[in-house]
């Protein structure tokens, strides 16, 4: 369990993290999202005590990180892939970290194997690719066999195989009942593995919700229906969880029914339907909408055809 309360961090007159409060619950995968510069990394650095909060607290398992007798056993973290001396081998790096805690050599070999680094374990880290560096960082995070794993942008720069590896690893960790917190600036990637979402922008809390609820809210489960007679079709679409909204004169967005059900209802009543499109792409859009005012480096608006917004 990670608990963050009223956490604030200022650098001079710039506020990186502003009164953030949230909890990462045990046995869940929590996605920590925000655009670049939103304060994700700073928050994570404060959780493991690398940065001192200007005010507020961050605790891991009820205590400040530094108060734990064996912090690596409490929470394993990957903050920057290359927090490693390039002149040292992967094995020597992990061994040096293990020695501080009295973690046996056997465990070092285990995490090297787990991360698939056997072949390069005795090579100097300076020659590692981004992907191998990331694997080494994850190996280090798992060294203490921690209950909580906290990873900052774990799939950044990985090839598809590496992305899949990280995704599988995280879900198996979660299946074992461990707590996982991972940050990302990619909504769609995170929604695949996370249970819970914490979205921040400009250091402030934007959304703290479940992935389910977020998708629901974003209209991700809806179906866009284009019909010649929306007024006739609309009252026919009823049910416990069915909601219908209309965007333009000829369009309805229906949630709670799938395209097949809507199609058959329309057919029964002889209503002409010329489009039935399940809404799938709106997660990233919803995320951008939430954080749009909070983008650190806002690019000039580009007029595109993707202006449709499920209200």
């Amino acid at each position, binding site marked *: 369990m990670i608990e963050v309360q009223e956490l604030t961090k200022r650098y001079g007159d710039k506020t990186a993290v502003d009164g953030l409060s949230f909890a990462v619950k045990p046995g869940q995968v929590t996605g920590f999202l925000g655009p670049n510069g939103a304060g994700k990394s700073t928050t994570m650095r404060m959780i493991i005590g690398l940065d001192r909060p200007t005010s507020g607290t961050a605790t891991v398992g009820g205590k400040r990180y530094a108060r734990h007798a064996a912090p690596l056993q409490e929470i394993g973290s990957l903050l920057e892939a290359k927090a490693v001396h390039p002149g040292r081998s992967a094995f*020597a790096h992990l*061994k040096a970290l293990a*020695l501080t805690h009295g973690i046996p050599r056997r465990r070092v070999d285990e995490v090297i194997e*787990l991360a698939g680094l056997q072949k390069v374990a005795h090579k100097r880290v300076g020659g590692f690719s981004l992907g191998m560096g990331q694997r080494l960082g994850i190996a280090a995070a798992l060294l203490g066999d921690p209950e909580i794993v906290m990873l900052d942008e774990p799939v950044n720069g990985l090839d598809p195989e590496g992305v899949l590896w990280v995704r599988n690893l995280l879900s198996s960790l979660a299946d074992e009942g461990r707590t996982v917190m991972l940050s990302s600036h990619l909504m769609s990637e995170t929604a695949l593995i996370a249970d819970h979402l914490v979205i921040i922008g400009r250091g402030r809390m934007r959304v703290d919700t479940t992935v389910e609820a977020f998708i629901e809210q974003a209209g991700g489960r809806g179906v866009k229906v284009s019909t010649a007679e929306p007024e006739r079709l609309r009252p026919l679409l009823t049910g416990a969880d069915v909601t219908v909204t209309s965007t333009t004169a000829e369009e309805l967005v229906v949630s709670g029914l799938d395209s097949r059900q809507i199609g058959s209802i329309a057919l029964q009543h002889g209503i002409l339907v010329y489009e039935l499109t399940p809404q799938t792409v709106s997660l990233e859009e919803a995320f951008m909408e939430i954080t749009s005012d909070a983008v650190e480096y806002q690019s000039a608006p580009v007029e595109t055809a993707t202006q449709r917004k499920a209200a």
Partner: protein
Amino acid sequence: MTTATTDTAGRTSARPTYKVTLLGVLRSEWSKFWSLRSSWITLGLAQAMVIVIGTLACAAYSPGSGGENGPPIGDSALGLALTGVTLAALAVGVLGVLVAAGEYSTGMIRSTLAAVPKRLPVLWSKALVYGVVGTAAATIAVLGAFQLGGLTLMDTDIALGFGDDGVPRALFGAGVYLGLVGMWGVALGALVRSTAGGIAVLAGLLLIVPGLASLLPDSLADNITPYLPSNAGSAMYALEQSSDLLSPGAGLVALVGCVAVTLAGAAYRLARTDA
């Protein structure tokens, strides 16, 4: 917390209990030091400087030639054999800076402090490990230089043996001086957090400031100069106490004080500021 499962991360039955201990941190720093090629190279280089320069200086000695090319410490077998110490101090100090500042320039410090969030044990361990390693390596080199150089001076008027008055003290003094300079380098590196900056400060204080001090009015210079690290060190390994140097004991105290003050500054910065 104990959980009993078998799983991907290799966890078997009940979890072992780990603990961060000072001994663990010391072992970690020991392992970190020896797992870098630069440690071996620089340490070897420092030893080579002491031995090669010392031996050459002894071999070049001819009775009566003292005058213009005379070594700084005086024309004894010991002074000649220790000619390389000045240069070796720079090498040993630079390695000390690398040991500490290298963690910052590479980002390693974040891994280190995530493992030891109480932080200060890391600094103490680094200083201690490198201080001990540096003293041991330097002492071996100094003894080697004295022995090898002694061979070439065997039949000259300045020949000295290990048993002669003050010789063991001066030799071990040189070893301890180099070890302390190494420790000082660690402190400077941790204080400045930059390899280039740390080396600049170290080289400046060891080599340049003593020269600059001579520009000060005599009354002031006489009070400052003997306490500068390189001069305090010279006092530790000089065979005869000269008027412008401290006594060997006072030199040791001055140098230890200098290291302690720098370490305290480094500790303050480490404990108080973001990594």
